[in-house]
Every structure is written in structure tokens, then in C-alpha cells.
């Protein structure tokens, strides 16, 4: 019995300690952004990597999400004879929920895993130690530009997701299933409020922090060898995806 309690205690303590480390990591990265900002070129490079290079994936996911929303929405609404509402259903689900969450999940899979692998390899090949020995702050070169880039890029990708998704829904709803195009956009305009857009942006901003934070942290503390990096990458993707969904629930309950 005692052994079980001891094990549980050690596990809890370890978890709390890890959470403390992670919070410290984030606060220090934010501090470095303010105190010694990286050269704009470094951040720009990350914006290109996390943002521009994710465009195609976002475009593809968004258009199919919009299309399936159009399809599902149409058949559900048709039962009540209110197909005209399709525009507002598609737009609200995208802007409030699916846009921020799905774009964040796609960026985690595409860019987050790469961030962890890159930093993890720098850790195991002593490149991070090399920065230390040159009396240079690794956070300035490795962490802060990524955090800043994710903050800038995620709301933009989310907006692209929303717009592409809305047109995906339009394609299926209007062009394929014959909903009135005027009704599609008019209902949308009537039901979408500024608050919805705003909450979507706030969500994607915070998801940007989560992705950069978790993926950088896991890479920075990768274990030994190739296995250490692969484990860190898996953990980073799983953890940030789960955290995005949990945080999304909390944010929704606050913002709604």
C-alpha cells in the first residue's frame, strides 16, 4: 500500500515539477522577446516556415471541411425546411470552432513536429551547448523567433481557413445542392457577429503560443540520440494537440 502511495506521490511531484519547468520556459522566452529581440530576419524565416509553407495544407483541409459542412448542414437543415440557413451554419462553425482548432492541429502536425525535431537535433549534436559556450542566449536564436512567428502566423492561417471553408460550403451548398446564393451570404452576414470573429482570433493566437511553447520545450529537452528526438517529437505533437482541444473548451466556455 505504502509503495503505491509513494509511487503516486513521486509521479505527482514529477508532473508538478515538469509543469513548473514548462511555465518557466514560456515566461523566459517571452522575456527574451522583449529584452533582446532576435533580428527580424530570423523571425521572418520562421514566419515563412510555419506560415507560408503551411498554406497548402491549410487550403486543402479548409476546402474539404467547408464542403463536408455544406453537405451535412444541408441535409440536416433540409429536414426542417430551412436550407437557407446553410450559410450561417457553415460560417459560424468555421469561424468559432473549426477554423482555429483545425488550422492549429494542421500546423502542429506540419510545423510543430519539425520544430521539435530541429531543436532536438541541435540539442543532441551539442549545437545548443555551442551557443552557450559562445556566451550567446539560445532562446534568442531558437525559441523566441518561433514563438513570435507562431503568434503572427496562426491568426492569419485561421482567417485563410475560414474564408476557404466558407467557399467550400458555397461550392457544395449552392453550386451542387442548389441553395440560393443570396440566402447563403445574407444569412451569414446576419448571424456572424464581430464577437465570433474576435473569439476565433483570440483562440488561434493562444493556439500559436501553445504550439511554439510545447514543441520548442520538448525539443529543447530532448533525450539522448535519435530515439530521444523521435520520442520528443511524438510527445510534442500529442501534447500540443491535446492541449489545444482542452484549451479550446475552456476558452469557448469563457468567450461564449
Amino acid at each position, binding site marked *: 500500500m505504502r509503495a503505491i502511495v509513494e509511487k503516486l506521490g513521486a509521479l505527482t511531484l514529477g508532473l508538478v515539477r515538469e509543469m513548473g519547468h514548462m511555465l518557466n520556459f514560456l515566461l523566459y522566452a517571452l522575456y527574451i522577446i522583449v529584452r533582446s529581440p532576435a533580428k527580424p530576419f530570423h523571425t521572418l524565416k520562421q514566419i515563412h516556415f510555419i506560415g507560408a509553407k503551411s498554406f497548402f495544407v491549410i487550403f486543402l483541409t479548409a476546402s474539404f471541411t467547408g464542403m463536408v459542412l455544406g453537405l451535412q448542414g444541408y441535409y440536416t437543415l433540409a429536414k426542417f425546411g430551412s436550407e437557407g440557413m446553410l450559410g450561417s451554419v457553415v460560417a459560424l462553425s468555421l469561424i468559432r470552432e473549426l477554423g482555429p482548432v483545425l488550422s492549429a492541429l494542421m500546423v502542429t502536425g506540419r510545423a510543430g513536429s519539425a520544430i521539435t525535431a*530541429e531543436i532536438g*537535433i*541541435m540539442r543532441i*549534436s*551539442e*549545437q545548443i*551547448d*555551442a551557443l*552557450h*559556450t*559562445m*556566451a*550567446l*542566449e539560445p532562446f534568442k536564436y531558437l525559441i523566441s523567433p518561433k514563438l513570435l512567428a507562431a503568434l503572427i502566423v496562426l491568426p492569419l492561417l485561421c482567417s485563410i481557413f475560414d474564408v476557404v471553408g466558407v467557399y467550400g460550403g458555397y461550392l457544395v451548398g449552392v453550386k451542387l445542392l442548389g441553395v440560393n446564393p443570396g440566402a447563403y451570404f445574407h444569412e451569414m452576414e446576419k448571424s456572424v457577429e464581430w464577437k465570433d470573429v474576435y473569439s476565433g482570433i483570440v483562440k488561434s493566437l493562444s493556439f500559436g503560443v501553445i504550439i511554439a511553447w510545447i514543441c520548442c520545450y520538448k525539443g529543447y529537452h530532448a533525450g539522448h540520440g535519435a530515439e530521444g528526438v523521435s520520442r520528443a517529437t511524438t510527445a510534442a505533437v500529442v501534447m500540443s494537440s491535446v492541449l489545444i482541444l482542452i484549451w479550446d473548451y475552456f476558452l469557448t466556455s469563457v468567450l461564449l
Partner: protein
Amino acid sequence: MIKMIDVKKAFNGQVVLDGLNLEIPEGRITAVIGPSGCGKSVLMKHMIGLLKPDSGQVIVDGEDIVPLGRNQLNRVREKFGMLFQGAALFDSMTVFENVAFPLEEKTSLSRARIRDRVHEALEHVGLRGVDEKYPDELSGGMKKRVGLARALLLNPRIILFDEPTTGLDPIICKAIHRLIQETHARFGFTAVIVTHEVPEIFTLCDYVAMLLDGKVLAAGTPGEIQRSADPRVIQFIRGELEGPLHFI
């Protein structure tokens, strides 16, 4: 001068440094030898503050660096240059960018001046026309030389070499040793070399310290070490299988 007093370090309960005492004389080349896994690299990482000991003191120029915070530690690290075992070049940068990096970040030199300094440093280690190559396009020996050029560039007073010749062919080994000797004669830095190149290293260094089980087993000039009365030292430097040390 670097002095380590009663330094202890354990990883996950496994003791690596066990009350180690060592003094590195200023302006000389000191070699640290010993069987694999005896804590040589760990020892070196303590000297530059990459690792903190569980107990004990690491004194650099009269100052204990163990309790220092990030900023103060960076001030101490300005005195150091380090050549890593795998060279630790930034693999997303070209050779030129790698060597120029510390200059760009730490000095306000003009672009042209940086280019001259980088080319001078690369030529000094015998490399030409590799500016645009990436580290993974280079051979092991070339990587080490780029790493050496990068370490030398800011004229540090202390340079740590972590196995500078491991995995290289005998001729490159000799070339790197000669390079260390020449640059040392020219700049007069304090050098610490962790190495397995016994007995070749004896012609290069002024002092030798042999580590065993996290402690300094013997220290002295190469001559003194070679004449040691300790059978373990003799067995190690002769590379004999039979003797008091058992590795397999």
C-alpha cells in the same frame, strides 16, 4: 587558471565525478586522458559551466563559477572557446556563416571586415573554397577544422578541446595536433585537451592528468606520467589488456 576542488557529479544516481581535484596551469597545454566513460567530457563541461556540480568548486581566474547566474556565467564564458567532439557546427548554416556567427553577434565589425577575419581564420586552419558548403557536406576532419576556426576567432584566453582528433585518420590527427601547437605558440592561450591519442599527445602537451573513476589518478608532465610507478597508469598509456584495469 582553472581549478577544480572536490567536484562531485552524479547522473541518475550514477557517480561520474567523485571528489575530483585538478589544476589547469595558465598559458599551457594540458591533456586529460583516461579510459572511456571516466568523466573526461563531463569534467570539461563543468569548466565552462555547461554542467553544474552536485558539490565542490570550479574556479576560473580566482572566481567560483558554480553559484553564478546566467548573465554572470556568460561574462566568464567570454574568456572561453570550445571545440566540441562532433564540432557542433550549426547545420542550417554554411561554413562561412558558422564561422562568422560569433563575430556578427558579438562585435560591431563591418561586413567586409568580418569577411576578411573569417577567411583569415579558415585559411589558418588550411581551408579554402568551402565558404558555401554546409556542414554535412564536409568530412570529419574538415568539420573539426571549421570548429577550430570558429573557436579561435574571438581570441579566447582558454580553449577547451573535446576529443579533437577522435575518428580521424592518423595524418589528419597529426595535422590537427600541429595546428593546435602552432596556434597555441602564436596566441598563448590556456588549452585543455580531452583525448585518447596516447602517446601522441605527450609530444604536444605540457601537462597530463589521467582520470579514473571520477578522480584524478595521476597528474604531471608527460615525462613524469610515462615514468609513473602506478601500474594502472602504465597499463593505460601502453594500451595493454593485462593489468590491474579491467574494461571487458
